[in-house]
């Protein structure tokens, strides 16, 4: 099958660090390091990257402008920044999606980000739709409705910039149980709010991402394909300050696809994507792959091996 016949294109969500002469640094530290990162990703067959909104500034600093940054990426085989992860700093009384009194600030911040992103080819603004669980609980229907209102409004605005607002449910997010997720998508505007399927986050939360995809496929605008070896059975999602990095039970939550201990049924997911004719970008993510001595290039290559040798035989 040629590239033109494929329904899926792959992007890389850029958790990545480089161990160099200056120690352990971000690939955004210099043009040279970003060059190396982009070449490695492109060599594997990725055509896009995803990054965090707080990298917009450094991209401008390194290249003079975002169009120039995109041109640099394209020269290395990366077409665009497919998605920006909108890293909302949720704070009680200042910025909480379940607190309507803070919606103006959250809306304005999202507006500023999409306005600032012009020139990178961004298609999605990914956001955790509520604060951390311990800040949101009790997670009442009213609070879920407030979150749905905010992101419906933001989603309408971002579409004016050609960007979809996609909600991404970390396992410690205020909205992460199956029932909460169902209500959120019922009460948010289906024209303006989309679902981003992070396979590991849902699996950790005890929600089968394949089952969720079967229910929400019509709202799905993308994926973060990553695996986990653990389900949170002891309410680690309530762990302060952030369950993803400070949970007492589990030092490393996320793994690349293709490890024998992985819990996500990626084969079934790709079969479901085929059944519903999903078409577009699919992203691979390795969040904190370096915990325990791993490294991002190796984890990413293993995930790509799994895609090429297992998943693409099901759907591509």
């Amino acid at each position, binding site marked *: 099958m040629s590239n033109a016949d494929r329904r899926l294109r792959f992007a890389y969500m850029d958790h990545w660090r480089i161990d*160099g002469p200056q120690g352990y640094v971000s690939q955004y530290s210099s043009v040279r390091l970003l060059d190396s990162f982009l070449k490695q990703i*492109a*060599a594997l067959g990725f055509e896009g990257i995803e990054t965090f909104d707080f990298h917009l500034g450094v991209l401008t600093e390194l290249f003079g402008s975002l169009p120039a940054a995109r041109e640099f990426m394209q020269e290395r*085989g990366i077409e665009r920044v497919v998605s920006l992860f909108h890293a909302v700093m949720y704070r009680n009384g200042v910025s909480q999606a379940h607190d309507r009194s803070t919606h103006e600030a959250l809306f304005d911040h999202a507006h500023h980000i999409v306005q600032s992103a012009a020139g990178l080819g961004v298609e999605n603004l990914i956001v955790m739709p509520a604060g951390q669980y311990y800040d949101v609980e009790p997670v009442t229907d009213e609070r879920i409705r407030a979150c749905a209102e905010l992101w419906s409004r933001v989603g309408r605005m971002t579409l004016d910039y050609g960007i979809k607002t996609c909600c991404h449910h970390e396992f410690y997010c205020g909205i992460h149980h199956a029932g909460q997720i169902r209500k959120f998508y019922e009460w948010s505007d289906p024209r303006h709010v989309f679902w981003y399927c992070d396979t590991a986050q849902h699996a950790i939360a005890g929600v089968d991402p394949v089952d969720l995809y079967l229910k929400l496929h019509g709202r799905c605008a993308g994926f973060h394909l990553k695996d986990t070896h653990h389900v949170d059975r002891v309410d680690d999602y309530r762990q302060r300050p952030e369950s993803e990095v400070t949970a007492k039970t589990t030092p490393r939550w996320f793994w690349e696809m293709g490890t024998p201990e992985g819990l996500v049924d990626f084969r079934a997911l790709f079969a479901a994507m085929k059944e519903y004719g999903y078409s577009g970008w699919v992203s691979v993510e390795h969040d904190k792959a370096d915990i325990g001595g791993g*490294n991002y290039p*190796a984890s990413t*290559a*293993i995930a790509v*091996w799994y895609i*090429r040798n297992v998943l693409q035989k099901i759907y591509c």
Partner: protein
Amino acid sequence: MKDQNIPFEGAIRWGYAFNQWKLGWQGFARVDDNIRALKITSASGFRCIELTAGTGPWDPLGRPESIAQHFGSVRKFAAQLDDWGIARIPGVFFDPGQLSFEEGHFGLCATDRADHALIRQQAGVHARFVADVGGEYLVIQAFPPYWRAGQLTAAALSAVADLINAIAQDNRSLGLDTFIHLDALSSLRAAEQIEALLEQCPAPGIGLAFDTAELTIAGHDVVGLYRRFHSRVRHFHFKDALAVDTLEEYRLPNAERALILAGGRREIPRWFGELGTGLVDFKSLLGAMHELDYRGWVIVESDRGPQPVASSILLNSWYVQQVLRPLQNRPLPDTR
């Protein structure tokens, strides 16, 4: 995923060496780690690998006995390669100067005829493995380092040539070619010596394995040297060189440590680099290979470097796909 563009069939057949993973005796000894490395190489777009002859129980892919112990048998291992995304093992690199537990030596010397029988026996072990897995060649680093053998005399050169001819005869009976690899420390240093060697080691079963970085470090102009010997060059190792041994420190005792690892008097921090980062003019070399109708394997190597091994492979993969392959677009008639 977007298609990768690194063919292992056609005029130039691309593969990757497997020598960069093993660091230290007890490192990289687990079978799982070796399989993971095969998958990383495959995902990087290289679907053929050249193994390195190893020794001892810590090297699961270093010898056919180890492979049989870990995978059941050599044939079964070969049948499993596709499960890991590897299409073929075209050959093995063999350096008789390295210690071998199995043959019971601390490194043999091809200029010493007394060592020939054991070197030939050891080469046979690896050659039979290559034949069993459907490969094509054995690369042999036949010449000892200068610091060990000294100035290469005509008699010493003839001794090595006789050994190569004997091994090549064995290999031919297995359907394999024999390629002679020269490294930066080799006692065979001058183009005239290469010429004398090739006169004594006739084609077609014997050719040169051209290592771009090693020859550059040794002070050769790789493109010019290839043009001179192109009719006998049958194999390449592509890696870049970051410095030249301008002080002739290949003469230092234990130059593998004193020059390559310690960097010599200049304390060169790193000799080998990813393609396109150093002194080798790969674009000109590929142009010459194209012009002179090279047909054969090009094995890309990482050798030593500070980055994760996967990074080095991926950067080399990018260079092959984005820089070298587009230069290779002129179709060649299939005359061989």
